[in-house]
Each structure stands twice: as structure tokens, then as C-alpha cells.
């Protein structure tokens, strides 16, 4: 069991109770209330997250480069057509 932190801010937020009914659903349900518990990733999960991040970064960079090269190629073709 995680030890309860003695932080006044956390204690204050934990004291806030969600309002009942529609107002609670709209205004309170998405508010995070700090419980003092943490999720610790296993080494395997951390490695998987790192790999996912690297693949997403690679994908984004490739996408940007592709868009740039397509634009240059199409512009070049249009200029050649216009010039001839």
C-alpha cells in the first residue's frame, strides 16, 4: 500500500466531492483527483513505449520529407510544362 502523502494541496483536492447529477457529469467527472498511487511501468513496457515513440517519430519525419519531395517534384513538372 502506498503511503498517503502529507501534502496540503493534495489533501484539499481529495476533499472535493463531485457534484451530483448533470453538473457533476459535466464539470467534475473529468477532474483528476490525486490518490497518491503511481503506475510504474515494467522494463518491458517502458521499452515498448520507447519503441512506439521512436516509430511514431520516424513516421512523422518520413511523412514530412515525402510531402516536401512530392511538392518539389510536382512543382518541377509544372515549371517544365509551363516553360515548354
Amino acid at each position, binding site marked *: 500500500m502506498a503511503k498517503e502523502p502529507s501534502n496540503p494541496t493534495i489533501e484539499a483536492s481529495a476533499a472535493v466531492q463531485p457534484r451530483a447529477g448533470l453538473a457533476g457529469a459535466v464539470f467534475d467527472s473529468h477532474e483528476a483527483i490525486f490518490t497518491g498511487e503511481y503506475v510504474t511501468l515494467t522494463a518491458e513496457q517502458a521499452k515498448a513505449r520507447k519503441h512506439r515513440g521512436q*516509430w511514431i517519430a520516424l513516421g512523422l519525419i518520413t*511523412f514530412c520529407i*515525402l*510531402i516536401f*519531395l*512530392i*511538392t518539389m*517534384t*510536382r512543382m518541377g*513538372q509544372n515549371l517544365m510544362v509551363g516553360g515548354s
Partner: protein
Amino acid sequence: MDFVRLMKPRVMSLVVFTALAGLVAAPGDMHPFTAAVAILAVALGSGAAGALNMWYDADIDRLMARTAHRPVPAGLIAPADALGFGLIMSVISVMLMALAATPLAAALLAFSIVFYVVIYTMWLKRSTAQNIVIGGAAGAFPPVIGWAAVTGNAPIDAWILFGLIFLWTPPHFWALSLWTSKEYARAGVPMLPVTRGAAETRRQILIYTLIVAPFGLAPVATGLGGWIYLVVASLGGIAFLYGAVRVFFSRAGDDNVRADLRRAHVLFGISIIYLFALFAALLIEHALPMVYWPAGLGAG
């Protein structure tokens, strides 16, 4: 690696190959780089459709041994991740096609993704025994997309290639379903052997093969295919028909008749080689004009 499997790489390879054939067979020039991006867009679009299919079908996939190991039913990828991946890849593929090729090619790519996911996967697959007949149209679009990427239009030759895959899909898939019908029945998917029985499926396979084998020669009539294509389509058509006749006169798919299923396996293999060979012949003839022109058959 699981995300690669989510994109159905084997299906993708056939989709890319037929799209490439359409792109090469189309008259006109396309910059090699934009042509490569157009093919990449088709591959991504195919993968996106595969991912969305696996997301939606996870409930029935886990009931069938053939599909239970797929990433979503096996728990390797969360359904929401598969959905997000499929949607993002769909948008990227259509965007790339629109930028690199033509608006028509991008529109056809978008339509084929929607057709496969919404019309086939979500609607037809679970509601009618004709699911694979109508749904097969989604897999028939790639050569038309490849053609439209070059020319910006889709003439009769492009639609002949569409018709070829469209008519080829039912006998190809029903051959597979003859030995997987029990799994489909368990999952509640109304494949033809489940709803109409194995005998009717064997009859339908023969009927469709009798149509597709002569239809395979249509590109020669319009000048799209030359003498190499003529030889390949003739021999391939005979082999395809031979396989279908052997299945028709067998008891493949009947209860407790496992020996005859080998004929269905053989037909399934022949059908794949047949389609691959036809599009390979078109590719050779149009990519290597020196082989093609001396014959004097067809136009370049």
C-alpha cells in the same frame, strides 16, 4: 511487428502488385518518384483497410483457429489502437495519393477503403452469403487506382482489370471456405458453404471459373495484352478450370470427407498463381516494350 501484421501484409502484396500492373499498363508518363509514392499510398490504404477490418472483426476472429492469432484477438494490440491506426493510415494514404497522383486516384482509393470496411466488413460479411461476391469489388480497385494515378481517368481497359479480379475473387475465396466452413459456422458468418452447403459452393466455383477463364482473355481483345499475356491467360485459364472441375466432381467440404479437401487446397493455390501470372504478364509486356512490340499484337 504486430502493427505490420495488423496491415495484412500478404493481402497487401497482391494489392500492390495489381496496382503496379495498372500503373505500368496505363498509357502516359509518370515521374518515377511520384509513381513510387502512389504505390506506397495504395499499400498504406490496403494496410489501413486491413487494420480496420481486424478491429471490427476481433469478436469473430477469436472464434476461428485461422484468425485467432491476429494481433487484436490475441490481445497484442488494443482494439482502440487498431482503430486509431487504421483511421490515421487511411487519411495519410488518401492524402499522399492526392498530392502525388490525381484526384480521381485518391477518390477511388478512399472509396475502396470505405467499401471494404463499411460495405463488406460491417455489413455484407455478417448478413449475406453473397458477401464475398459484392465485397470482392474492394479488392478489384487497385489496378484502376494505378491506372487513374497516371492518366487521371479510368477507361474500359482499367475496368477490364477490375472485372478480372472481381470475377476471380469468388472461386478463389470459396475454395478456401470449403475447408474453413465449420469455423465460419461457429463464428456465425454466412459464407456460402455454411448457408447453401458444400455441393452448391462447388457448383458456384465452377460457374465463376467458367466465366473468369474466358474473361481473362479480354485484355487481348482490346489490345491491352499481347502474345505473352495471351499464352499465360490461355494456359492459366485451362489450369484454373481443371482445378475447378476436379473440385466440382469431388466431395470437398462435405462432412467426414477430408481426403477431397486436397483438391480445394490445390484450386486455391492455382487461383493465386493464375492472377499473379496474368498481372505479371501485363507488367512484363508494358515495362519491357522490346519484348512486347515485335509480336505486333496490341498497343503499347
